[in-house]
């Protein structure tokens, strides 16, 4: 049994359920919580049946759940209990299906937000409560601060490049006091150093890039596997020149294009052309000069706020994950919010989120871009 001091300390600090993906970020998050004296329980959400990936019975080894094994080995090293939660069905309906259908509607989806909305900050919050935990921790690059009134806010991470608050705008405000982001104050090299020092096997593991369930095959291949060939065929159409509509070429499906795309259009032309918009009804991909990509007015639907917005308030808005953020006036309307940017923005893409920040770093909320 544990010695009594450690026991008292843990009772005081509380009990934490930590989401462990098997990556270095959440592994270090778990390690730091243990060091800080929390009672820590690790959990990995099994979200996708990797056995379906590439491997069928009788052909080679299974790539399945290497990440789950990594998470488990970190939990062993930290000597904390660890469980795998089966979230496959929920992940399919709330993340995969909307992801595929958004592409088929000519949008560029953002599955990580749905995963946060329906799995990490819903399913795991439920598990946290059921297990009698006080907190849920994740390895997100984000921080939580309290204002003078004791209200908790999510703010951006110390590492600007890694900040992931963009994906967190759908969190319910009332659960913020129950959240811990143990690595939000670290820069990646510091984090890797901690992982090395603590002897975590994942210390040198490559950063995950892209969408976890798509893997190396690319999203077009993924969609091909998920959708019948009839549906894919029905998405073929024409590429037209914006704004006058001269036909430039035909294409193999609107899901293969994204707003602002300049490469891989399958045409040679004397000037550089970009995808300006995608018409999912006519299956038309509109291409044109870069100037047509610029927009200063953006409609945001299905908004979600973590704290109040004064109507007409100027906030800093990010329109995609890697966007640096730009000033916009935020005006409520019947569909959500209308954003008026001070400077026009390039390639505003339906399906992506517009996320609002106050004072550059405090997450206020956001919504989905619709033009």
């Amino acid at each position: 049994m544990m010695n009594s001091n450690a026991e008292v300390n843990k009772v005081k600090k509380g009990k934490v359920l930590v989401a462990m993906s098997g990556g270095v970020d959440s592994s270090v998050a778990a390690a730091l919580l243990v060091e800080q004296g929390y009672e820590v329980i690790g959990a990995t959400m099994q979200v996708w049946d990797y056995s379906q990936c590439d491997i069928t019975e009788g052909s080679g080894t299974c790539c399945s759940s290497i990440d789950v094994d990594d998470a488990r080995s970190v939990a062993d090293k930290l000597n904390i209990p660890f469980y795998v939660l089966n979230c496959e069905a929920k992940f399919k309906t709330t993340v995969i299906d909307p992801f595929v259908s958004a592409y088929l509607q000519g949008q560029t989806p953002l599955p990580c937000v749905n995963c946060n909305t329906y799995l990490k900050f819903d399913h795991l919050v439920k598990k946290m409560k059921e297990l009698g935990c006080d907190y849920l921790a994740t390895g997100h690059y984000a921080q939580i601060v309290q204002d003078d009134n004791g209200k908790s806010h999510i703010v951006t991470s110390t590492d600007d490049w890694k900040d992931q608050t963009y994906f967190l705008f759908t969190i319910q405000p009332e659960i913020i006091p129950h959240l811990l982001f143990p690595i939000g104050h670290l820069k990646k090299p510091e984090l890797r150093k901690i992982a090395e020092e603590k002897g975590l096997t994942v210390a040198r593991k490559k950063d995950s890039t892209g969408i976890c369930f798509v893997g190396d095959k690319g999203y077009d291949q993924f969609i091909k596997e998920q959708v019948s060939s009839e549906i894919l065929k029905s998405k073929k159409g024409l590429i037209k020149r914006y704004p006058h509509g001269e036909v430039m070429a035909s294409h193999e499906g609107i899901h293969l294009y994204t707003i602002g795309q300049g490469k891989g259009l399958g045409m040679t032309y004397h000037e550089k052309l970009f995808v300006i918009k995608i018409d999912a009804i006519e299956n038309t991909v509109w291409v044109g000069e870069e100037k047509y990509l610029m927009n200063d007015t953006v409609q945001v639907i299905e908004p979600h706020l973590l704290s109040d917005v004064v109507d007409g308030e100027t906030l800093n808005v990010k329109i995609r994950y890697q966007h640096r953020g730009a000033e916009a006036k935020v005006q409520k309307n019947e569909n959500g919010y209308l954003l008026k940017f001070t400077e026009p923005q390039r390639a505003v893409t339906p399906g992506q989120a517009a996320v609002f920040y106050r004072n550059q770093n405090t997450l206020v909320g956001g919504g989905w871009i619709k033009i």
Partner: protein
Amino acid sequence: MSGQSELRSERIYLDHNATTPLSVRVQQSIQKNIENWGNPSSIHIDSRGPKTILRETRKLFAEIFQCSPLELIFNSGASEGNNTVLKSVWSKYQMEKNEYIISAIEHPSVVKSAQYLETLGAVIHWIPVDKKGRLDLSFVQHKISNKTALISCMFANNETGTLLPIRELSQIAQQHQVLFHVDCVQALGKEVLSLADLKIDYATFSAHKFYALKGCGVLFVRKGSPYTNLIHGGGQERGRRGGTENILSIASLLAALQGYSELAEKKKNMTVLRDQMESEILKTIPLAEVTAGLSPRLANTSSLVIPGVDGETLLMSLDLKGFSVSTGAACSSGNPEPSPVLLAIGLSRQEAQNSLRVSLGWGTTAEEIQTFVQTLAEVVQRIREANNFFIPNSSSENKVV
């Protein structure tokens, strides 16, 4: 180790249908048999000990289960045994007799083998089993024909503990001169079984369900029943199963079998404790139900449905408090989809997800059961509160079905 995990260090193990701890007798045998590292197939003196172990274990097993030692084949476990049986029968009859009648609640090693045979041309008739664990014998009568190669049914179900009508099935099989296979994994150490009594052609066993080591199984093949090797190799097991025998594991089975005479007493003890446990649970946990509780069951198994409580979370919570239980079959954990067996007997998805399996063992004590029931009630209440689960103002809803 410093900073010992939050897992309670003094644990109470109530998952004996998944595997059993090693009995003291077995632990001692392991120490003793370390010297028996020789290859039993060798000619020199180092093979003598291993040879003796094989001979003695086979002899004792045959005595207990009333068959001939020659009818027993040592292998790696019941999954191998079940695969061997189904594939052997297929090899013998192929399309000539390509129909198989198999209960709908079999272990995956039977289900997946059967599905594999389907790809080769077999037709599988899955025998329905109801909520009370009753197998539909009229279905068997209806489906059996001169195309039937095999009837396969487990002795007792690993999840609900219900006993299947082996005697009746063996009679039907005999009448129609159809081969009969019984997966006896859950019978070992829980129920008396005689292979002389019944017309069973194949029976499969695993040592690790009976307080012995993993990696050893016994396959009974009645003299004259078709057999084809699953593993070809050396002349081991009279050429019926290639591969050097797992002597240490087989020796551990011998040690476990040497305590077999305690079965009657242990069974009585487990029945009393299990019944006490269930009656306490039904008293203290509103809306809890015992699946197939009034049906003939193994003495040690209790399958519970606890509405408002996700089995996955319940298992985790109990684990953290020092209790090992199960939500379904251990083979499929890590993938806690609702148990196919519970779905097959007609539980809803929700009921299956609210299920918990508690399986007692020879060493389970009254104190352990008392502590367990207390903790279970506390944990259930906490989870229900966290989910704002509404309990109607009456506990008379509890029932055994």
